[in-house]
């Protein structure tokens, strides 16, 4: 039981990661693919923050009378990753808008049909 509680965070992170991965590879709609990528991203954030947590710890802001803090370094990494993630999302969505202008659709199957690829 302790083992399950101790690893539940990691397993849910992996489940979310696979849900995002599944969306990216199985769905043809480009907006939905980008949402799948975002779910994948959030799962990685959860994995990192889970590893930074210390039982009985406080948020890493130095306060008198508190001895145990959570590990601040994964927080810094993930803070950067969130902001960069939004930048890549914005770029991906801009590409989707351009693809819509050029092909008139955002469905992968129809784009392939117009290009006679696949």
């Amino acid at each position: 039981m302790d083992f399950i509680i101790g690893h539940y965070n990691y397993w849910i992170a992996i489940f979310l990661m696979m849900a995002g991965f599944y969306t990216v590879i199985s769905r043809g709609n480009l907006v939905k693919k980008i949402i799948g990528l975002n779910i994948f991203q959030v799962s990685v954030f959860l994995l990192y923050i889970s590893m930074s947590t210390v039982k009985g710890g406080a948020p890493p802001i130095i306060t008198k009378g508190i001895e145990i803090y959570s590990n601040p370094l994964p927080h810094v990494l993930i803070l950067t990753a969130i902001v960069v993630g939004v930048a890549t999302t914005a770029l991906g969505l801009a590409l989707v808008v351009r693809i819509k202008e050029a092909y008139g659709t955002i469905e992968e199957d129809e784009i392939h049909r117009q290009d006679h690829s696949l």
Partner: protein
Amino acid sequence: MIDIVIDITLLTFLAITAVAIVRITNLFAIIMLFGIFSFLSATMFVVMDAVDVAFTEAAVGAGISTVLMLATIALTKDQNEKQSVGRISWLPLAVVTLTGTALVYGTLDIPAFGDPEAPAQKHVAPYYIERSVPETGVPNIVTAVLASYRGFDTLGEVFVIFTAGIAVLLLIGDKRRKSTPGRNEGGENDA
């Protein structure tokens, strides 16, 4: 005990929301669910003591991302995802099941959640916790590392966002002005 119950409940909600996002085909509903998903993960970060990450995720992940996605479906006028025909439906499922199993096998050796003796808590983290206030005078350690110890990395991050903003402008800014003059442009507010 109570925080473990909250932890497990929120994680289960996250999993349910993710499954709903995969299954629903209306894009507007998907984007709203994604906003909920982001807020749930922000709550999860508060529970796990990562307050700075939580408010960044709430503002940027749930706020700006959702607005950008709504702007995209407004511009592309696509409301529903079409069910793709002729795709092999079992192959993606098999791939993710296999990958997921391998990853779960990898977690079996990871120290348990919240373990204070885990290698991640014993390496450089104590240095920053002890020295950040005497060396930088900033009580918030995350801010101290982000802006002081790793200031150049943050500068690099600014370049990344700047590049993405320019790329978005190049992709849709000029083009849209020519084709539909005077329309409200949704994709540019991230620059």
